[in-house]
């Protein structure tokens, strides 16, 4: 599966557009991490726990998007976008979406 944020896949032609594919997930870290992050907030710096949380969630959202593209019979997803939102405090929602295409 080719994935790209570009409009096109270099050296390849898009033969067919199959519509939008999206993957999303909602995740939270355990409460201990939240408390540690609260303490870390005082001194500042990277919140390792949350970086990890968001990166894991992004991986999963991306995989789900690929799963949809595979189900559609696509071999590439172009114009991929990520979007992050937080539904409630301490939880984050990651969305990955793009255009499923068949390239040659």
């Amino acid at each position: 599966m080719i994935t790209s944020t570009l409009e096109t896949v270099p050296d390849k032609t898009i033969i067919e557009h199959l519509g939008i594919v999206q993957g999303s997930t909602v995740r939270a870290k355990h409460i201990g991490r939240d408390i540690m992050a609260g303490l870390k907030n005082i001194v500042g710096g990277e919140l390792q726990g949350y970086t990890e949380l968001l990166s894991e969630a992004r991986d999963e959202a991306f995989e789900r998007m690929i799963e949809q593209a595979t189900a559609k019979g696509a071999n590439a997803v172009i114009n991929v976008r990520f979007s992050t939102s937080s539904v409630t405090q301490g939880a984050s929602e990651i969305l990955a979406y793009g255009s499923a295409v068949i390239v040659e």
Partner: protein
Amino acid sequence: MKIRNVKVPEGINVSRHRPVADLFVLTAGAIGLFATLGLLALLIGSYGGRYLPMSWENALAAAVFEVGETDEEVTTNNREIETALQAIADRLSANMDLPEDLRITVHYLDEDEINAFATLGGHVFVYRGLIARVADENALAMIMAHEIAHAANRDVAANVGGVLLLQLVLGTVVGASPETVDGLIWGPNALLLRQFSRDAETRADRDGLTAVATTYGHVAGADRFFRILLNELGESVPDEGPEFLNTHPLTVKRIADLGALARKRGWTLDGPATPLPRVLTALDPAD
């Protein structure tokens, strides 16, 4: 270039799970986690409280009582009664193993309640209702020695430390208010804390009895207080409930334990009754 829409199968972005099973597992887990955390906080807090330097406890008590001292009732109450009670307390504490910086200060409370209690910094409070119901100094000395033993054993500090840390932990983790935590501790379900404080009660009984035996040469009247209590309870609280539900060990059991301890140590159960100081005999429970 062709453009067509292909249907996506369901359930890629929504994971399969069983919500009801999830609910039960998570609820049980949360209760278990918070109970463990709470118990840990209580244990560490009491341990810390017990081994806090006595001077710290005194400073804390001074700060608390500074506020209380403005209370009209406390200051205008009979100095004479307090002096008489203080004399008894001083005699008892001379025969007890008190921490170096602990000074026992007795206060008198003009209310009809058969009770006495110790608070931070060695402040012991005695109610009028208790004094009016005891026939001689020996019975009063037993309960006062018991409370002084609580202060000497640092039970009060342990209690305060445990509760404070519990409030802090539950407040941070679940956002519970101090009132909710108090409800948990003193509510009907606080079996653990009761077990915890029952051990302290038994120890205070033992230390108190020892002090009484050393001071008066006999332990007559020591159990008299509990018999008075038993009588009173016999009228108002017929059923004390199973033992583990009570903060204080069952009164009957306490009398039996004290008798056994006295026999073991060879303390005589009868001896001359020391009369109460005159200021104390004049008190009327119904007043």
